[in-house]
C-alpha cells in the first residue's frame, strides 16, 4: 500500500460525491475510489509503463454509475493537482508524462464506457418502447377482437348507423332476424325500416334522438323481413356522441320477441275462445258488445241485435248418450251457427253449456235479426250424425233488436235472456221477439209474486162466498169460498191473477190455510146464527196443498179451533189433483173423508178422469164444469150433445152415490133443465154472484 493513497481516495470521494448518482454510501464510495487509486499508483510506477489501467479505471467509474460528466472533470483535475503530491512522488518530467498519459487513458476509457452505456441504455429504452407498443397493440387487438366477437356473436341484433340514418354495419343476428345481408342493409336508411303499424312514438323519439335531445329510448317495433313476414321486436336505440358531445352514431339493439308476441296472441286467443267449438267465448263476446257501444260516433242512429240461443233438450242427450256425444253435438251446432252467420259485424259466441249468442252489429231493422234466427233454425233442422246416432236437435232463440241509443249492453243481454225463456215457454224450437208489454206483464207478475207474502201478513186478502143452491127447493145449502186480493196498487184482483203465481212460489199453502180458516170461522158463525139451516163452506184445495203432508192436521186443527163439525166443510179438488196423484194424498183425502169432511171434484169433465177408479175414491160430490152449461143456456135451442153429457154425468154420479153440482148456471132455463136432468145443486150468477158474508146472511134470512 502506497502511503498517501488512502488520503487521496478520501479527497477524490469528497470531490465527486454529488456529481453522479451512485448507489453507495459515502464510505463505500471512498472504499471504491481507494481501490482505483491503488491501481492508478501501481500503473504510475510500473515498469514497463502501460496506460491500459488508466483506461480501465475510466470504465470502472462509469460501471459504478459515476455517469455525471462532472465526475470525470473533477477526477482528471484532482489527479493532475493532487495525486503526485499526496503520494510523495517526486515531480519529474517522466512522472508528469506518465500521469498525463494515464489521465488521457482514464478520460478515453471513461468516454468509451459512457458512450457504450449511453448507447446500450438508448437501445434498451427503444426496445422497451417497442415492447410496450407491442403490448398495447396486442391488448388493443385483443380488445377489438373481443368487441368484434361481441358484436358478431351477440344473440341480440345490433346495428350501427350514422346520424343521417345510413346503416353502417349490422351483426349476424340482425341479418338473420331481418333476412337481409349486411350489404343489402347498407343500402337502407333507418327511415326505410318504418312499419305501418309503428306507433307514432317510435319515430317521434327517433327524431329527438337524432337531434341529440335524448340519448336512448326503448320501443316495441315491428319490422318487415326480406321474405315478407313480420318480426316483432324490442328495440333499444342509443346515441353515440363524439368528443365534443355532438351526435355521431346511433346504435340499435334489437331483440326478436316474435315468439313471445305470438304466444301472447295465442294466450289471448285461448282466453277469449271456447276450446270445444273454437268460437269466441263469453269474455270476447262481452268485450265486442261493449265495443259496439263505445264505438266512435256514439250510439246515435245505430242499431244492433242479439240472438240468445239455447238447444232444446240438450240435457237429455248429454245424460242419455254421454258427454262425449254431447260435446260433439255442440261442436257441430257451433259449426252450423258459424256457417249460417258469417259476415262483417256478426259474431257467434258460445256462452257456456248449450247456450250460444249471435251479435249483429249495424242491423237495419228487427227483420234482419229475425232472418238470422230463421236461418239458424233452418240450419239446425238437418239431423246431426254422431257416432252412429242420428240426432235431431232444435233450439229456442230469444231475439232483441233495437237502436243503441237509450239502451246498454247489459240491457240487451238481459232482455235477450228473458226472451229466450219466452221462446222456451212458448213451446221451444222457435224464436221469440222481445216485447216490452209482455215484459211489463212479466215484471208485474214477478212483482205480485214477490209482494204476496207481505200482502198475506197485511191482510190484503179477503174471502167472498157464492151460494150453492139445492135445485129441488132453491135452498142455499152451501157456499163456495173464493179468495180475493185487495192490492194497494192494482186494486181488486181475482184468483186467476195470483193463484197460479202462489202455486209456483209455494205461497199457496199458507194462503190456502188462511182461506180455510176464514171460511171455517164464517161457517161457524152461520152455524151459530142459523143452526140447522146454516150452509157448509166449500173451499178450494190447490194441487200443492193436497200434497202437503200437514194437510190433515191443519184441517183438523182449524175445525177444532172453530168448533165446526166436519160435515160443514167441503174441500174442492180438481180432477188432476185427485187422479194424477200417488197414494199419499189419497190417504190424506181418505183421512179427511173419514173425519167427516166432504170431498168434491171441481171442474169435473174437463180433465181425464179414470171413471173406473172414481168409485174407489173418497169423493162425495162432482162439480160439473161451467163449460157444459153453454149448450143449455138458451130457452129455445138446446145443444143436444151438451145436454146428453150433463145428463150422463149426473147419472154416473148418482150411480156412484155422489151428489152433483152444476157450475156456471146463468139462466132460468139452465136451472130448469138441470133440475129436470136430476142435477142436485146449482151455482152461478143465476142464483147469486160471489159476495160478502153479509150478503149470504141476507140470503139465508130472506131467501133468493
Amino acid at each position, binding site marked *: 500500500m502506497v502511503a498517501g493513497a488512502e488520503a487521496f481516495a478520501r479527497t477524490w470521494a469528497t470531490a465527486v460525491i454529488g456529481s453522479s448518482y451512485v*448507489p453507495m454510501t*459515502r464510505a463505500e464510495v471512498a472504499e471504491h475510489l481507494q481501490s482505483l487509486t491503488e491501481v492508478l499508483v501501481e500503473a504510475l510506477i510500473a515498469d514497463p509503463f502501460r496506460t491500459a489501467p488508466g483506461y480501465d479505471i475510466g470504465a470502472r467509474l462509469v460501471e459504478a454509475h459515476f455517469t455525471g460528466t462532472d465526475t470525470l472533470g473533477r477526477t482528471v483535475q484532482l489527479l493532475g493537482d493532487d495525486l503526485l503530491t499526496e503520494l510523495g512522488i517526486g515531480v519529474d518530467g517522466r512522472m508528469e508524462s506518465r500521469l498525463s498519459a494515464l489521465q488521457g487513458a482514464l478520460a478515453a476509457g471513461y468516454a468509451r464506457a459512457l458512450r457504450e*452505456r449511453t448507447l446500450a*441504455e438508448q437501445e*434498451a429504452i427503444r*426496445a422497451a418502447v417497442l415492447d410496450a407498443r407491442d403490448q398495447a397493440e396486442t391488448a388493443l387487438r385483443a*380488445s377489438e377482437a373481443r368487441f368484434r366477437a361481441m358484436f358478431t356473436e351477440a344473440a341480440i341484433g345490433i346495428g350501427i348507423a350514422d346520424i343521417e340514418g345510413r346503416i353502417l354495419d349490422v351483426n349476424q343476428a340482425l341479418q338473420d332476424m331481418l333476412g337481409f345481408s349486411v350489404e343489402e342493409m347498407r343500402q337502407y336508411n333507418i327511415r326505410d325500416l318504418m312499419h305501418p303499424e309503428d306507433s307514432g312514438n317510435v319515430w317521434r323519439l327517433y327524431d329527438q334522438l337524432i337531434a341529440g335531445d335524448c340519448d336512448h329510448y326503448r320501443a316495441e317495433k315491428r319490422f318487415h323481413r326480406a321474405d315478407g313476414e313480420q318480426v316483432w321486436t324490442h328495440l333499444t336505440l342509443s346515441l353515440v356522441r363524439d368528443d365534443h358531445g355532438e351526435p355521431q352514431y346511433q346504435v340499435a339493439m334489437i331483440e326478436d320477441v316474435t315468439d313471445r308476441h305470438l304466444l301472447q296472441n295465442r294466450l289471448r286467443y285461448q282466453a277469449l275462445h271456447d276450446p270445444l267449438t273454437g268460437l269466441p267465448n263469453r269474455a270476447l263476446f262481452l268485450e265486442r258488445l261493449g265495443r259496439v257501444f263505445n264505438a266512435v260516433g256514439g250510439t246515435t242512429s245505430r242499431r244492433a241485435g242479439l240472438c240468445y240461443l239455447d238447444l232444446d233438450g240438450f240435457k237429455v242427450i248429454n245424460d242419455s248418450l254421454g258427454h262425449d256425444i254431447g260435446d260433439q253435438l255442440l261442436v257441430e251446432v257451433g259449426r252450423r251457427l258459424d256457417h249460417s252467420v258469417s259476415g262483417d259485424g256478426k259474431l257467434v259466441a258460445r256462452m257456456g253449456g248449450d247456450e250460444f249468442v249471435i251479435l249483429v252489429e249495424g242491423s237495419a231493422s228487427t227483420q234482419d235479426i229475425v232472418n238470422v234466427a230463421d236461418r239458424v233454425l233452418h240450419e239446425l233442422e238437418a239431423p246431426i250424425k254422431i257416432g252412429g246416432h242420428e240426432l235431431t236437435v232444435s233450439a229456442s232463440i230469444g231475439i232483441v233488436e233495437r237502436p243503441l241509443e237509450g239502451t246498454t249492453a247489459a240491457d240487451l243481454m238481459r232482455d235477450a235472456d228473458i226472451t229466450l225463456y219466452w221462446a222456451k215457454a212458448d213451446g221451444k224450437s222457435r224464436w221469440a221477439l222481445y216485447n216490452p208489454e209482455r215484459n211489463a206483464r212479466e215484471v208485474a207478475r214477478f212483482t205480485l209474486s214477490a209482494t204476496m207474502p207481505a200482502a198475506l201478513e197485511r191482510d190484503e186478502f179477503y174471502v167472498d162466498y157464492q151460494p150453492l143452491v139445492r135445485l129441488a127447493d132453491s135452498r142455499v145449502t152451501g157456499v163456495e169460498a173464493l179468495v180475493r186480493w185487495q192490492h194497494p196498487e192494482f186494486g181488486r184482483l181475482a184468483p186467476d191473477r195470483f193463484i197460479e203465481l202462489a202455486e209456483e212460489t209455494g205461497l199457496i199453502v199458507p194462503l190456502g190455510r188462511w182461506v180455510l180458516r176464514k171460511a171455517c170461522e164464517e161457517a161457524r158463525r152461520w152455524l151459530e146464527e142459523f143452526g140447522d139451516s146454516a150452509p157448509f163452506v166449500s173451499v178450494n184445495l190447490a194441487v200443492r196443498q193436497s200434497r202437503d203432508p200437514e194437510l190433515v192436521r191443519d184441517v183438523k186443527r182449524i175445525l177444532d179451533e172453530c168448533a165446526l163439525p166436519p160435515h160443514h166443510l167441503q174441500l174442492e179438488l180438481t180432477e188432476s189433483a185427485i187422479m194424477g196423484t200417488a197414494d199419499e194424498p189419497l190417504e190424506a183425502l181418505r183421512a179427511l173423508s173419514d173425519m167427516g169432511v166432504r170431498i168434491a171434484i171441481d171442474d169435473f169433465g174437463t180433465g181425464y178422469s179414470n171413471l173406473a177408479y172414481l168409485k174407489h175414491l173418497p169423493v162425495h160430490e162432482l162439480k160439473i164444469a161451467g163449460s157444459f152449461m153453454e149448450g143449455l143456456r138458451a130457452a129455445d135451442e138446446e145443444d143436444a150433445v151438451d145436454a146428453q153429457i150433463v145428463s150422463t154425468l149426473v147419472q154416473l154420479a148418482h150411480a156412484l152415490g155422489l151428489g152433483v153440482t152444476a157450475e156456471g148456471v146463468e139462466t132460468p132455463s139452465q136451472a130448469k133443465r138441470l133440475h129436470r136432468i136430476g142435477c142436485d145443486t146449482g151455482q152461478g150468477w143465476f142464483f147469486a154472484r160471489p159476495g160478502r158474508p153479509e150478503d149470504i146472511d141476507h140470503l139465508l134470512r130472506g131467501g133468493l
Partner: protein
Amino acid sequence: MAERPKWVPGDIDLERPSVARVYDYWLGGAHNFAADRAVANRTLEAMPELRRVILTNRTLLRRMVRHLLRLGVRQFLDLGSGIPTAGNVHEIAHAVDPTARVVYVDMDPVAIAHGKSLLADLPNVVALQADIRDPASVLGDPEVRSVLDLDQPVAVLMIAVLHFVPDADHPCGIIADYLDALVPGSYLGVSHSGGEQGEESAAVAEARRRYSEQVAPMVHRTRAELISLLGGLELVEPGVVRLPHWRPDSPDDVDESADRFPGFAALGRKP
C-alpha cells in the same frame, strides 16, 4: 368503433415527456428521449440544485430499503418505481438476501416494458403496469400475488410518487386500501416533495410550474399534511423529516441546506 376502451394503454408518444424518463435523465441515465431531456433541462435551468435534490431522493430509497432489511422485511412493493436503473430496490435487497421479493409498479408502459426485460430472469421480482391509485387491481393482480405473500409483512414504498396524487384522488384512502390488505408489521415508506408554507423559493416554484405543465401536475405538501396522510401508522424514528435528515449514512451527508430541503421522508409501521 373508434373509441378506445380505457383499460387499453394509450399511444406511446415519444414527444410527450414521461415522469419516469425525466427522472432517469436527472439521475444521469440515458433511458430517455429528446422531449424528456428538453423539459428536464428547462426545469434544471429554473432550479440548478434540482439535480442534487433528485440524487438525495435516490439515496433515501437506498437508506430506507436497507433499514427495512435490518428490520427484517423481505417483501417490497415499490409504487411508482420508474425506469429501473442503478441502485434499484431488488439490487439493494438481494445484496442482503437474494430471496427478497420485490414488485415494481408504474403506470408508464415503457418503464414497465424495460423493467420486464431486465427482470425476466429473476424469479422473485416482477414489474406491473398499473395505476397505483387503484390498490385493488394492484393487489389483486395474479403476478403480484404470486410474488408477494400477504400473510407476511410487506414494505410499501411510495418514493417521490404521492406528490402526483392530488387530494381530489383521495391519497388517504389509497394508502388505507394498501395497508388494509397487509398484515401488522408491514411498512409504508414515503418521500414527498414539499416544505412549510411560504418557504418555497421563486426558483423552486418556477421549476415546479414548468414540470407540472409539461410532465405531470405535482402537489407540494407540508409536513403536517404528510403526517396526517400517515395517520394510523407508528412512525419509525426520526418521524417525518426533511429528506437528508432521514437516517443519513454519515454526518457529512447532512449540510447546512438540509433544513430547507424541498421534500420530506417518513417510514411508518402498521401496528
